[in-house]
């Protein structure tokens, strides 16, 4: 086995072992369990940093050229293969997943939401990590589907056990809604596998193997796209998201917004577009219109929101709208914008949910009416909130800008009345984002301190868990804003290979 293959396996095995170890410890060793889980998460993060792209581009016509791959027979009778691989599109997402999981586990060392049993929460986070990274690493459709489903139940448990007062309903809605998406995904996978005789993504992405007819491609793309649209989520299939986010514990929200949603956009790009490019090309305008509707609708709804976490959840709908718009353009520019938008959203919204959790932990409310004047009593907390909000509204120089601005650029590149209109509307949506985030800041940080905020006292300061978990995200938000090649340099070649299919 080569080093790369060992790393691939370690990326999935380490968190799995960590989860078992953490969950296996008895209740009196709860803290030890959390430490163990965090150590494994950190080790996984370290492993993901070791991946390196090959020096020379491989000589292949296939659209997916993995840096390293692991291809083992899994169920030979069903011709299923355990095919893992990593390339420039999946690599940043894998690192982001490992980073956020590590930060969430570390955060749990200091703060465990009610009803305690933090080692189990950490174990579930690690299981989630296995599932999410598995999705990003799978190069086989069935394997992809399996990992896609692995994520479902741990997330259900995280929300239903450690969530807020209305957690059961929210968790149920999350599971049922995304299960509906999974059914479509399963049907889509069947359609692809039966029509083309293989579930191997590399083979499916090879122009030499193009057995699917145009009609089948359209069917496959629509099925897969709807499945991924539920996960992303794309308006109007988004309504599970606000409920889940509002009720989920802080770490659950961070993972949910930070990386779980990315399974949808990644799946759309890698699986749906990669497997059925003709179908994608024919459906792109519809996808783009819905994405733009998501941007505008998300912005407007945020402007009328009165609860902190709900507002951030809806802002995700708008941000993912930009990502989906980028993908829908099917240009190299748009795909690059979508990828960096994905990563930026994971970092910035992860940070926002951490901060929202910090505020709710202290004040036991997220109602904007009961917050106010936070900068008077908790300057550091409100400073970080302002920073994250400003990053999230897409200020140039911080992470959120590139994905949004260049989704608009990509729409203009496509040209024609439809795409130009969508680009203009998306730009208007960016102004809406400024409006609702500034409204949020005005309500939460400015003005006189409300009674709840005034009584903060010593709680106002940032705790060690918060410093540890937040500071990497704060730094990355700025770093990605100034140095977009942190993501773009990896994805340039695979995106160019993909965009070539569409002649763009």
């Amino acid at each position, binding site marked *: 086995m080569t080093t790369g293959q060992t790393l691939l396996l370690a990326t999935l095995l380490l968190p799995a072992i960590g989860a078992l170890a953490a969950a296996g410890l008895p209740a009196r060793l709860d803290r030890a369990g959390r430490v163990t889980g965090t150590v494994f998460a950190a080790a996984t993060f370290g492993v993901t940093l070791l991946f390196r792209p090959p020096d020379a581009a491989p000589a292949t016509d296939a659209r997916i050229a993995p840096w390293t791959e692991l291809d083992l027979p899994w169920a030979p009778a069903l011709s299923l293969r355990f095919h893992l691989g990593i390339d420039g599109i999946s690599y940043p997402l894998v690192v982001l997943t490992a980073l956020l999981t590590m930060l969430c586990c570390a955060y749990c060392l200091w703060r465990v939401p009610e009803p305690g049993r933090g080692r189990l929460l950490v174990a579930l986070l690690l299981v989630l990590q296995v599932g999410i990274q598995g999705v990003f690493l799978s190069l086989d459709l069935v394997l992809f589907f399996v990992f896609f489903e692995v994520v479902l139940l741990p997330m259900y448990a995280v929300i239903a056990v450690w969530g807020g007062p209305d957690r059961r309903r929210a968790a149920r*809605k999350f599971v*049922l*809604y995304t299960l509906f998406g999974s059914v479509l995904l399963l049907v889509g996978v069947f359609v692809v596998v039966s029509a083309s005789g293989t579930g191997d993504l590399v083979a499916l992405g090879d122009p030499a193997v193009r057995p699917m007819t145009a009609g089948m491609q359209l069917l496959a793309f629509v099925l897969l796209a709807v499945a991924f649209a539920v996960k992303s989520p794309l*308006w*109007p299939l*988004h*309504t*599970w998201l606000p409920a889940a986010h509002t009720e989920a514990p802080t770490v659950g929200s961070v993972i949910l917004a930070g990386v779980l949603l990315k399974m949808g956009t990644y799946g759309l790009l890698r699986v749906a577009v990669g497997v059925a490019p003709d179908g994608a090309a024919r459906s792109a305008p519809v996808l783009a219109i819905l994405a733009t509707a998501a941007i505008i*609708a998300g912005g*407007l*709804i*945020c*402007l*009328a929101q009165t609860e902190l976490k709900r507002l951030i959840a809806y802002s995700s709908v708008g941000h993912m709208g930009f990502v989906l718009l980028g993908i829908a353009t099917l*240009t*190299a*520019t*748009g795909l*690059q*914008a979508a990828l960096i938008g994905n990563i930026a959203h994971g970092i910035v919204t992860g940070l926002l949910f951490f901060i929202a959790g910090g505020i709710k932990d202290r004040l036991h409310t997220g109602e904007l009416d009961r917050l106010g004047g936070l*900068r*008077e009593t908790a*300057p550091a907390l409100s*400073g970080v909130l*302002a920073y994250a909000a*400003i990053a999230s509204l897409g*200020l*140039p*120089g911080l992470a959120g*800008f*590139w994905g949004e*601005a*260049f989704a*608009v*650029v*990509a729409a*203009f*590149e496509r040209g024609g009345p439809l795409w130009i209109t969508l*680009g203009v509307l998306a*730009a208007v949506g*960016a*102004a809406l984002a*400024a*409006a609702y985030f*500034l*409204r949020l800041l*005005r309500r939460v940080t*400015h*003005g006189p301190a409300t009674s709840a905020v005034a009584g903060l006292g010593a709680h106002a300061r940032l705790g060690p868990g918060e410093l540890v978990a937040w500071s990497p995200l704060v730094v990355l938000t*700025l770093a990605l804003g*100034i*140095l*977009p*090649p942190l993501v*773009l340099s990896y994805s*340039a070649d695979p*995106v*160019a290979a993909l*965009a070539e299919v569409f002649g*763009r």
Partner: protein
Amino acid sequence: MTVDPLGAALPAIPLALGLAGLLLRGDRRVPAAVLGVGGATAALGVAIAAAARGPHGPDSGHVIAEFGRLAVTFGTWLDGPAGLVAVAVAVVALCVQVYSVAYLHDDDRYAPYAAQVSLFTGAMLLVVASGDLIVMLVGWEVMGICSYLLIGHDRRLPEAPRAAVKAFLVTRVGDVGFLLGIVLLGVRAGSFRIADVFAADLSAGTVTAACLLLLAGVAGKSAQFPLHTWLPDAMAGPTPISALIHAATMVAAGVYVVARLFPLFERSAPALVVLALMASVTMLLGALSALGQDDIKRVLAWSTVSQLGYMTGALAVGAPAAALFHLLTHAAFKALLFLAAGAVIHAVGTNLMASMGGLRERMPATFWTMTAALAALAGVPVFAGFWSKDAIVEAAWHATTGDGHGPLPRGVAAVVLVSACLTVAVTAAYVVRLWRRTFGGEPRSAEARAAHEPPWAMRGPLLVLAVPTVLLGFAGLAVGFSDRLVGGGWGDAEGAMPLRAATPVAHLTWLALVPLALLVAGGWLAWRRDPAAPLPDTATTRLFANAFYLDAVQDALVTRPVAALARAGRRADERLVDGAVDGVGSGARGAGGLLARVHAAALPRATTAVLGGAVVIAAVVAIVVGVA
């Protein structure tokens, strides 16, 4: 792949020190002041070095991001105007930083304030130096957010948070156009580098569309009608911030960018017509609104709106050098005006001129420096503003008579000329009123009676800024200085702006007599009034005081409809979109319950049903077999 080191250092130093300063705790005054003043000093040093080196061409830059075939480069272009504007920005920023140390002596959030001023300065310098449109946009927007943070700084003012949000949102609405304009240029030209965009073969339609879109952003940042409404409210910020925003950063950025991109604007008559009309309305509207205010800072704020109208008017009539000249003189005297007003407010404890009066003997240094600045603002001969305003009026005259540059129709140029002349009279009136009401007569409050000069950290910047306020105009008489006001990108096309100034930007002709006569008339009208008396309460003065009720119009046409739309969107999302999802859920549950009820039968009925079913099946089988 080279970057001009001076161009890179110019924004990088204040930006880096500003970011470092954000990490300080709010009450760490000394390190914050060191970072703030140090950053501004270093920026000034670099700016002077760049200006002394002379105009420089665009560098090839360093690619920082590649999206498909489009690349974003960090490149700079320190041509003549860039060097001069950078010096002006750095001088004002340094004065503001020094002045703020004293002005905010008891503020426990001084550290983030000083850091944000540094960021603001760095962002403006990025706009000035950048040779790439996207990088310019970065500075442009960072400036917006810094203005938001700084305007909302004062916790004692209940209106500050609202004013801050308004400042950012109004400019951001314009920035939608700005972004789209940049995107259009970048996509059509295949590059975001300004030099490449100039060289690209763009269709007339593209240029006009892009210029009109850019103008939306310019109107927002440079407070042009109808996006000017944020600027007077921005007075809620601390006074040094007003000086910073009104003099060298933020509002200057819009004018500067049009001058920088003038080779594009010059190719589009429709864009210049829009700019000319915007400018004509803005200058007169601002001046008349200034006439109706009693808050000293609001008078100055409206005067900025009006003066910016002069600059955009100059751009519209094809005289970007005159616009830049006025930008520089205005930076000096407006910064001085605000800092002096801050000294007055510091001493009197109120912004209202009704409680001032008689400050002439009590604050002589403030009085004399402010008098010079007011004279420059009104355009009294010899003072800086006289020369630059005269250059604009003259350019408008040439455009009207048809021997100017640029494709602006003569009729529209005449509108600019008339508006500029009328504005001179109104400016003289409100300047005289402000001067007499603040410094003349008897003190009208106990605080005004007890007023005294500010500490040296505040007095020093006043004296420094007084020098260019009085003398900078004479520089316009020199050909060498006028050469520097010519942008590096101008004059590439045939029949375009010459690359070197043939004549000085300021030169006197008989034409200067017209504005002078109007100046005297306007000043005399205001002089006759008793400075202690408030304005009579008539429909006209109410109209001026409320700035033609444009805030209410904006509220009714934009703010409230958007808020209503947002509420409707939320309701629709919760009732319709989510309602449908919940409906599917409860529908499924209902159907399941119905089936369950049907199945939950007592034994006799269940037995009957089973038997009945068996009979039916048997019958079906019999029929099928029989048929077969």
